[in-house]
């Protein structure tokens, strides 16, 4: 298997998109998935349980120093940045917001690109800000694969459009086709 991890960034409209995506991925999908979804700083983690209920994958909030395992999906906790260490464990940081966001997509993508190099797939979904653009550039610079939700099909087109405008993207696709592509790649 060429790819060892997938990072996903989503903002406004992301809950619907993630629900669609995770309802479709089959139980044997083994590449670990790491997600930053922008949420309010006072929000709790209930939505993660709801997402887990709808998915055949094991979805949980990422813990500090947790080892990244195949077949698992990890979500950044509200109000913390989520980073990947080179030994494929998580770090959390309560440092300043990046692009007005904590967790920030850039912070996850940049650290994951350092850790996984060309074995990483980056996916940017719906959103109405520019977080994720620098992160995706880093994914590409390290040799990873860049996938972006077609802005025309996204609930909020700005975030995917910003990535496309600033990076050489491998695939720009509607959600259904992203799912099909992932099923082929793993």
């Amino acid at each position, binding site marked *: 298997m060429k790819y060892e991890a997938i990072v996903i960034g989503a903002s406004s409209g992301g809950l619907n998109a993630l629900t669609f995506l995770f309802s479709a991925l089959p139980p044997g999908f083994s590449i670990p998935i790491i997600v930053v979804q922008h949420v309010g700083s006072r929000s709790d983690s209930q939505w993660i349980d709801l997402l887990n209920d709808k998915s055949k994958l094991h979805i949980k909030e990422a813990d*500090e120093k947790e080892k990244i395992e195949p077949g698992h999906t990890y979500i950044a906790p509200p109000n913390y940045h989520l980073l990947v260490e080179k030994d494929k464990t998580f*770090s959390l*940081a*309560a440092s300043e917001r990046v692009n007005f966001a904590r967790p920030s997509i850039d912070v996850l993508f940049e650290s994951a690109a350092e850790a996984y190099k060309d074995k990483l797939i980056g996916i940017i979904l719906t959103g109405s800000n520019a977080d994720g653009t620098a992160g995706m550039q880093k994914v590409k610079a390290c040799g990873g694969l860049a996938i972006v939700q077609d802005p025309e099909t996204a609930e909020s087109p700005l975030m995917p459009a910003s990535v496309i405008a600033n990076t050489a993207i491998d695939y720009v696709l509607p959600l259904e086709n992203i799912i099909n592509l992932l099923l082929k790649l793993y």
Partner: protein
Amino acid sequence: MEYKDTSDIEISLLLDAVYKKYGYDFRQYSEAHIRRRIMNRLTLSGLGSISQMQDFVLHDKSFASLLIQDLSITVTEMFRDPDFYKALREKVIPVLKTYPFIKIWHAGCSTGEEAYSMAIILREEGLYERTTIYATDFNQQALNKAKEGIFPAGLMKEYTLNYQLSGGKESFAGYYTSSYDMAIINQALKKNIVWANHNLVTDSVFAEVHLVLCRNVLIYFERSLQNKVQKLFYDSLTNGGVLCLGSKESLRFSDLQGEYAVLDQKRRIFKKKYE
């Protein structure tokens, strides 16, 4: 032949230089975050490589001090994680009430918001007069700010909400005076707080205390360093003393996990067992 990543080598050499020259030891902090901070400073500095930064760190004190500030994350709030303070009121205050004199240690107090929050709770619970709060950090700039106790007035709305969510029933505005765009913490809250410079990595036990709060500091440390610092807290605590960690921190990597009883798992409050 396999080459190691150049930036890995450069970062490790840079951290060595900071330690050897200035005594601040970041060598066992979590790498991904340290890397991020260093890369940000590199971009801001306009220098060409981390190796060039090392040259500046060794020969230019003010540049070194900038970098050391970057590596120490001082983001904090009053009544951060209101749930935690609520549990503190309900589960820890009753323990403290049994002592004639109370000593509390805030390790990694940053600019003081956490220690002032504690002072407010102690006052409301009638314990402040018999308490000494030691608030320590290795970041002198942060400590100086903490001592002043002057915060941007714009933050008070958020802090008031935190305070109320934490179970505070008084008027939060009574704890500070506003002056232009500043909020100045009342002198009465300051008088029993002792601010001191202390480095958790390189200094030894600070004082014997009944309560240690070390929140959102250990997440930046590797496991082995977390374990070492946990030993420091254990040695500082009296029997039956209480340890409070940040909401994403735990005793999982500590050899001493078995030496504590859990007072509140979700809010990360632990009680040292009697030896």
